[in-house]
């Protein structure tokens, strides 16, 4: 039987639907997630199946959305909040950073804040500075939060199911350009555990560590490089926090060269953490310094040519890989 293919958006919807059917304490809360079906159509059809009590459309009130999710979680619910664009996370930053992340610790380990905050991130849609952000690095820095950034429909579905079942607050980053990408997703029930990375392509000459949309671009780059006889290994941590260090390190020990590819501006972003990890724990295996290929130091520009250039594209990855292999 041929494997079933669904889009990334459908995979997320399936995860939500299955978890809502499985567990009555799961509910959705966010702006325009009901009749409208979500700004990117992810929650389409869920209102019809689950009703207004479990697919809760709210006023434009990001702080109240996340705060309400936290309050409900304190009473044992498992809310999944949708923040329409990742940039809008700034509006609920207090609730995410000071409340959701810290409550358990500050209350002596007694509270559980089992919430998921889903949000579309990334540039490439021409939406300019306020709708194109990749702010995941802000949240990986916060003890108490888990941060997930799936690249494929399979991972998106399996990781979201795990995130909903997790007893901690999880930031679930969905790249806008991934929503329409397709991939195999089995019919039967499965989950992908948080904190476990995956080697998306095997190779021996160079390791590329990438997450979210950069996994797809890195795989394309690897394909091009393969024609030149360069065998690239692509490692996708899938979860940024907790980070699967061993999958990254074992790849580095094998290939001895690393390129870290990520969308946020290069300076101080999560990719730097990966680079530091490798320098600390696999320094002896390195034949060249770890190279970071991140975004330019610029808010996302509107102009499509410029917008394309601020984040790593396939050709940038190919070029950086070739240079790294020459060094």
């Amino acid at each position, binding site marked *: 039987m041929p494997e079933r293919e669904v889009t990334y958006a459908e995979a997320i919807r399936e995860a939500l639907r299955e978890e809502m059917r499985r567990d009555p304490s799961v*509910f959705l809360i966010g702006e325009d997630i009901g009749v409208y079906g979500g700004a990117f159509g992810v929650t389409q059809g869920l209102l019809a199946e689950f009703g207004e*009590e*479990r697919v*809760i459309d*709210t*006023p434009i*009130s*990001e*702080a*109240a959305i*996340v*705060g*309400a*999710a*936290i*309050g*409900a*979680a*304190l*009473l*044992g*619910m498992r*809310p999944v909040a949708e923040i329409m664009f990742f940039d809008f996370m700034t509006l609920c930053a*207090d*609730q995410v950073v*000071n*409340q959701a992340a810290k*409550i*358990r*610790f*500050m*209350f*002596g*380990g*007694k*509270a*559980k804040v*089992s919430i998921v905050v889903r949000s579309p991130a990334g540039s490439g849609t021409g939406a300019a500075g306020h709708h194109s952000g990749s702010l995941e690095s802000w949240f990986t820095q916060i*003890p*108490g939060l*888990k941060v997930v950034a799936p690249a494929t429909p399979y991972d998106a579905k399996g990781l979201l199911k795990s995130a909903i079942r*997790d*007893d*901690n607050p999880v930031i679930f980053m969905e790249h806008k350009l991934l929503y329409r990408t397709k991939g195999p997703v089995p019919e039967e029930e499965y989950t992908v555990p948080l904190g476990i990375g995956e080697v998306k392509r095997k190779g021996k000459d160079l390791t590329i560590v990438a997450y979210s949309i950069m996994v797809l671009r890195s795989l394309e780059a690897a394909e091009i490089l393969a024609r030149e006889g360069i065998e690239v290994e692509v490692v996708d941590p899938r979860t940024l926090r907790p980070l699967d260090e061993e999958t990254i390190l074992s790849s580095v020990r094998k290939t001895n060269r690393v390129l870290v590819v990520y969308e946020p501006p290069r300076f101080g972003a999560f990719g730097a953490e990966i680079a530091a990890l490798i320098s600390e724990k696999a320094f002896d295996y390195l034949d060249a310094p770890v190279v970071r290929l991140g975004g330019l130091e610029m808010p996302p520009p509107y102009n499509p040519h410029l917008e394309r250039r601020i984040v790593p594209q396939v050709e940038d990855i190919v070029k950086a890989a070739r240079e790294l292999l020459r060094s």
Partner: protein
Amino acid sequence: MLSREDKLKMYSTMLLIRRFEEKAEELYMAGKIWGTFHLYIGEEAVATGACFALRPDDYITSTHRGHGHCIAKGADVKKMMAELMGKATGYCYGLGGSMHIADLEGGNLGATGIVGSAIPIAVGAALACKLQKNGRVVLCFFGDGAANTGAFHEAVNMASVFKLPVVFLCENNQYAMSFPVHKAFAIPDIAERARGYGIPGVTVDGMDVLAVYEATKEAVERARSGLGPTLIEARTYRFKGHSKSDKGVYRTKEEVQMWMERCPIKRLRALLIEEGVPEEALREIEKKVEETIEEAVRFAEESPEPDLERARCMVYA
């Protein structure tokens, strides 16, 4: 109607809050409590009257000035004192301190050190009560300062449009740190804000425990019957500074004196005597409160320090 026993219980609660705070201040001066805290002295009638209108299984959310809310909701002052001393036996294993006391089993969903941030959380708890159809109500304490945060507006509106079982209780103690309400609000009564959200708003004398009780009782009944939230503004005053670093330069001695003469504890005591309660009965309560506090201090002092490795395990579930 409140019985004599009820009123005596209120008296006892208010006194316990007062003595707890006075003792905490004493211990702070003696270097046994560190950091900072925000004393509730003068505001005891609000927490006491409001919590008295709740059922034991109802919930509250609290603020950085939260000791009174905890005690009124039935917290164990031993665990509270231990928390203030940063001990492992404290409500939060000594990790939260004064501003972050929670007692989930007792229905206290926690205090927050960020002004206004517990208001959306209270709304979420009320949403859960509605979804779980458990018939419970959430009482959300916050100060006048919080009523000017975005979180307040977002949360009150959301609670109103969803008709959630929550009561918003604004403790207007006249100052957001040093900033007086007459400069922070362009309207005379904070309760007026309720109109903008389509809910009832009432202003009560926060120095009168019985008035706070009556207003809250009505709001709780309304919330429980599915009619949605109420905004109550309780006019009160903190006799002490904002926190331990407050030099008190923004208000006059006369003003403080004027409010201190309206002390809610003295007021209830006078009323009880007027209603024929013998002094002896009140002194008995006062003695018991003293003993409870002494026991709490002993418990806290003898308690162990928290362990770093155990604390580490509390970051994630």
